[in-house]
């Protein structure tokens, strides 16, 4: 009985809506107002009718109201008997706003308003309506997202919507998705040939909904031929997924490798070119990260721009600290590498404690600017996260700049001269002390720049440097001391190796394997992947 009644009222509503939209100019508004009035009652049955009315009114605000209903933000004020919008729930109760002017908020008690009830059927209906709205949106990305959403819950209505869109869809990507949706529906058809015909289209798609449906078809379908076809389509999809999974691992590996290269490349200069062990290198990275933090504190309103200031600032700050370390300590320990190691380790402890005393031992959070968040979606199962992408690009940029400085500038020439033969360089008029200080400053400055990058990835705290120092040494030693290319190749390959091992063995074991590998590798090639040749190597 009740079903008949509901059906009748629904039909009536459809009829009314048809009349409304054709006969009266303001019909939309009437239907919309009527729908709002029904929803205001807060009774589920009437709400259901109200939703239908809102949908049929094709009013501008329908989508907004329905969406907030779906997000459980539409409330009914009990005393005023009108709809209000929830802004947030807090300890005092509810912060609400009027539907028309969302700016004017007021606080009411928890029990003063009641949420408009919804059931799953209504939710489905609203979702479908919203999707169809999005289906005809102007932006391609919105349309794509709408179809992707619909794929997992196709029914006759939504399919009709999609088919309608197909007639005048111009974007090839969206067209492809539409074809997928139609094929997905065909897979449910009674006709075996239709099902068979649908499968080749589906095998091109990487949507999870398609994969689920195909998996079901491959086992449950009545026809053997369809089962087999579905199976081979699935295999094709799985191959693609495996391939993209592999590409993703490489991408993750390269981004991890970039972090390693960034952390190690400053060391490649101080250790590799100057032959000076700087255990405080990690702390110079940390100083760069804290510089980023301080700069963000100074310009809280423009986080996005602060990074561009932080890079040169961190370079200068870390570079100056580096020069101070070189002038204050390291120059007295020339030719005593083990003592240098100990003294710089002492410096690292002092710097750590200094940061603890100044900034507190707790981690500081450095904000990530908006342009770093987000990702580029290549296809449904593979997307490049922007911050990883930027890290890779940043690493390559730093590497290129450093390479040019060493190969193309006067300073670079002098640095290489001193590193190859100190006495001869001095005889030719190079001020070796001055070059040492600048080289150390350059290496330290690069460490600071690495700190800026790391501040975007990990927590900024006093222990930031310590966690990278061993990795950095491994990269430099693995790549071959005194060889920037070696550092780049070593860092990237260690990063990729780590990420390749991780799913097999877990993150910690992967790291252990890599360490053990390097220890064994050093036995075979004590001078790294790209050893220095000639007399300079013997120094």
């Amino acid at each position, binding site marked *: 009985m009740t079903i008949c009644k509901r059906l009748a009222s629904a039909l009536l509503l459809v009829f009314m809506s048809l009349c409304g939209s054709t006969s009266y100019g303001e019909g939309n508004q009437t239907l919309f107002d009527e729908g709002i009035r029904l929803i205001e009652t807060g009774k589920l049955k009437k709400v259901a009718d109200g939703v239908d009315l809102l949908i049929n009114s094709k009013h501008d605000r329908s989508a907004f109201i329905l969406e907030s209903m779906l997000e459980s933000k539409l409330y009914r004020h009990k005393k005023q008997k009108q709809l209000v919008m929830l802004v947030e729930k807090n300890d005092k109760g509810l912060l609400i706003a009027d539907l028309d002017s969302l700016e004017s908020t007021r606080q009411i008690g928890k029990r003063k308003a009641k949420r408009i009830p919804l059931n799953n059927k209504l939710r489905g209906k609203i979702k479908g309506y919203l999707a169809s709205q999005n289906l005809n949106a102007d932006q391609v990305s919105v349309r794509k997202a709408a179809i992707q959403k619909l794929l997992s819950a196709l029914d006759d209505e939504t399919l009709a919507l999609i088919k309608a869109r197909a007639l005048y869809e111009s974007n090839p990507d969206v067209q492809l998705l539409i074809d997928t949706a139609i094929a997905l529906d065909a897979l449910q058809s009674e006709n075996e040939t239709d099902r068979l015909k649908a499968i080749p289209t589906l095998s091109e798609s990487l949507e999870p909904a398609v994969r689920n449906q195909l998996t079901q078809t491959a086992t449950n379908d009545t026809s053997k031929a369809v089962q087999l076809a579905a199976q081979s389509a699935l295999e094709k999809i799985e191959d693609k997924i495996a391939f993209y999974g592999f590409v993703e691992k490489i991408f993750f590996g390269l981004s991890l490798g970039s972090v390693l290269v960034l952390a190690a490349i400053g060391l490649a200069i101080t250790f590799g070119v100057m032959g000076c*062990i700087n255990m405080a290198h990690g702390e110079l990275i940390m100083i760069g990260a804290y510089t980023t933090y301080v700069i963000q504190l100074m310009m809280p309103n423009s986080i996005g721009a602060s990074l561009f200031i932080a890079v040169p600032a961190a370079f200068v700050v870390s570079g100056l600290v580096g020069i101070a370390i070189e002038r204050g300590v390291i120059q007295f*320990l020339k030719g005593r590498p083990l003592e240098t190691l100990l003294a710089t380790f*002492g*410096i690292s402890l002092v710097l750590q*404690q200094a940061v*603890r005393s100044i900034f507190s031992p707790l981690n500081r959070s450095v904000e990530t600017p908006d342009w770093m968040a987000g990702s580029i979606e290549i296809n449904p199962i593979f997307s490049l996260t922007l911050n990883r992408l930027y890290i890779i690009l940043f690493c390559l940029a730093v590497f290129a700049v450093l390479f040019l400085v060493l190969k193309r500038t006067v300073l670079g020439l002098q640095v290489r001269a001193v590193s190859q033969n100190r006495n001869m360089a001095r005889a030719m008029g190079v001020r070796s002390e001055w070059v040492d200080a600048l080289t150390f400053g350059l290496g330290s400055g690069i460490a600071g720049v690495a700190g800026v990058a790391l501040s975007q990835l990990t927590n900024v705290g006093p222990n930031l440097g310590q966690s990278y120092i*061993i990795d950095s040494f491994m990269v430099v*030693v693995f790549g071959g001391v005194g060889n920037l290319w070696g550092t780049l190749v070593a860092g990237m390959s260690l990063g990729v190796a780590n990420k390749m091992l991780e799913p097999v063995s877990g993150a910690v074991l992967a790291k252990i394997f890599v360490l053990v590998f390097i220890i064994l590798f050093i*036995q075979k090639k004590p001078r790294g992947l790209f050893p220095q040749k000639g007399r300079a190597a013997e120094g």
Partner: protein
Amino acid sequence: MSLVSTQQINPIQETIFNRSTVLFLTVLAFVSVFVVICNQFVPVGSALHIPTYTVTLLGKYLTFALLAVSIDLIWGYLGILSLGHGAFFALGGYAMGMYLMRQIGDRGVYGDPVLPDFMVFLNWDELPWFWHGFDMFGLSMLMVVLVPGLLAFLFGWLTFRSRVTGVYLSIITQALTYALMLAFYRNEMGFGGNNGLTDFKDILGFDLQSDATRLTLFLLSAIALALGYIACRYIVTSKLGRVALAIRDAESRTRFIGYKVENVKLWIWSFSAALAGIAGALYVPQVGIINPNEFSPLNSIEMVVWVALGGRATLYGAVIGAVVVNYAKTYFTGALPEVWLFALGGLFIVTTIFLPKGIAGLLSRKEQRA
């Protein structure tokens, strides 16, 4: 690159019991007897009474001193700067810890007669294979020496043969202890994860909390230090020791003369690791816990500073350095925790720049003047 001038050590005429050794052993014996008397026979209220807490603390310092001596042997006399000696110390400690864990028996929180608490907690059904036999004291003590010794042997065999020296060697020793730390932090390894092994009850049937056991452990540490010191003196004054000095000062030349540099390095290195293991084994029952933090590279490098501060290639310098730095650490971390890292860091810098021969260098300079 000579660390010590040739006048100071004249290897040909050296005997095991030279003046400094005799002096050191006498002081050690005197201190031990003094501690025993003040702990046992002086009444509690008296100003001279040494509480058992202090005895255990001193015992801990003595195990550190033994560890420092083992580092001095390879750094001072062989020129190998190990930044991973904490690994051998900790491995010895873990071997002892495993014995002590097995001794707990069914007195653990879960009351399992065989499995230690953390294994019950992880829902393990049986003991992993490497835990078998650790209920026997003798075998456990063998492992205390064997595990660090064998690891060092393997590591040294690979490293010295491929002639990895100097800074490279230091860095890969650091990588070794870092890798071990990461491994021991894993619960799956079967060594208690980051909690390590703790909650020990007794050793060979003696209650670990009792004063008598603690005093005995202190005395054992003193004896171990004395024996370790004499053994190191023996090596240093033997022909092997003289070759070691030659390797330290001119490795290539020694090799060209015809000595098997790798073998000399390998044996002294492995011996040093075993000594560090013994120090670890004595350390664990006194502090009552061993956890993966002992593997941390920072710990290992701190040990090197004890030796650097005390003075290399003297052995007694290492003992002085270990005791002084650790006493300072106990004091500062209690009274002024903020200052400790500044002080330790400053110590590294000042020692390397202004005191290349450490405290021992200061002492012998005065001696020469007098």
